[in-house]
């Protein structure tokens, strides 16, 4: 033990795995750590923590197929939203157009590089990762057991959602649009409508997804123990 500590915490962490419990239904509430047993839920039903009221699990019907369909729709809308102009403006013979990317580009040119990178990240990069990860997860999870990379993407998927701010941007664009409408004629572009649809598609994509279902399919890092836990299922299959 002492020897392992001296090689540094990473060496220690890399080879020590926790032992799983004998069943997967026992969980701890992520918000208050209360240990409890998840009931077997019917489709659409949800379980809440009795102590802090956190929703622990909501069982979704056809979660994988629906989420796959919605993330495909999201990918198409995302490409349209970033490829075509979002807003146009005409005033006394002048005309100007901007795309989503154009907003970040103009900030960069005006010397606000850090804010430009933040805008680029929250409305271009993070949504692309959010949709792309979901697409890959739902495709990869069709295999059982699912490959390890599905687990890796699923681990980072909530972070992409935290920083993906399309709906906030859309509200900001609408405020800017009405503000500018007093000075000049504003022409809403196709991308604005694509973004409006994308906000709802992303929300539906997140709502139809059941991470617990995917986690139950992902291949374990520590392979041996999985056999013990899924033993019930295996014995069902065997005659």
């Amino acid at each position: 033990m002492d020897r392992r500590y001296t090689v540094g915490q990473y060496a220690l962490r890399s080879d020590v795995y926790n032992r799983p419990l004998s069943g997967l239904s026992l969980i701890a509430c992520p918000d208050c750590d209360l240990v409890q047993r998840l009931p077997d839920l019917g489709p659409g039903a949800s379980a809440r923590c009795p102590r802090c009221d956190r929703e622990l699990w909501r069982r979704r019907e056809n979660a994988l197929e629906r989420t796959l369909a919605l993330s495909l729709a999201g990918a198409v809308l995302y490409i349209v939203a970033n490829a075509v102009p979002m807003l146009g403006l005409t005033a006394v013979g002048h005309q100007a157009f901007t795309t989503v990317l154009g907003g970040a580009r103009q900030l960069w040119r005006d010397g606000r590089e850090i804010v430009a990178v933040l805008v680029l990240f929250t409305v271009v990069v993070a949504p692309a990762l959010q949709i792309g990860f979901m697409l890959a997860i739902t495709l990869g999870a069709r295999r059982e057991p699912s490959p390890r990379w599905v687990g890796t993407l699923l681990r980072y998927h909530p972070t992409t959602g935290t920083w993906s701010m399309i709906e906030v941007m859309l509200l900001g664009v609408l405020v800017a649009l009405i503000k500018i409408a007093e000075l000049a004629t504003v022409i809403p572009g196709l991308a604005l409508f694509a973004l409006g649809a994308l906000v709802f598609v992303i929300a539906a994509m997140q709502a139809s997804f059941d991470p617990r279902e995917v986690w139950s399919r992902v291949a374990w890092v520590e392979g041996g123990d999985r056999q013990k836990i899924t033993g019930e299922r295996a014995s069902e299959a065997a005659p």
Partner: protein
Amino acid sequence: MSTVALTAMQQGLQSCEACGLLSRPAPGADEGRCPRCNETLEFRKPDSLERTLAFLVAAAICYIPANLLPVLTTVTAKGRSSDTILEGVVLLWSPTGWPLSLIVLIASIMIPSAKIVALGYLLFTVRRGSIASNEQRTRLYRVVRLIGRWSMVDVFVDTFTVALVQLQPLMSVEPAPGLFFFAAVVVLTMLAVECFDSRLIWDPASSREVQYA
């Protein structure tokens, strides 16, 4: 197992933040890896209170220039004029435009300050070991986590105003230094929320239940 409600930590179990699997560390070890997803496991988020406080203090410092410095500069033939966030709210206020003005007021002034106060209150009560109104404090944390992103609205309003109003030499709008500080407040408070571990709210109450059991 006892009949008293216990937390995973009291039973020596660790819950994976990534995949939710409950597992037991190897004998003698305090931390290990999740056997399902390889995530590093800890009983509580590491240095949660210190990290949250650090981000919160940084956010509170940036909050001052964010509100005092202008966020936009308008250049016209008549000259240059700069607006702070609050001036932007006042400018938007009109018989028809007041709903927008209200949106910006709530998102840019009220949400960031409420967030700083709420997180400060949570840090203070957790450090004091309070056991009162745990459920409401957890709910407060969830609300802060949910609405925090909407403060970014003003950054986007300014971004796209700048991108569109480029009618040189007639009129153009440039971003001003306050925009950076305002964006910093939003990002720093979001990071503070991510570092906070709401299970700490429940820990004093959990240990007391066991004492009296």
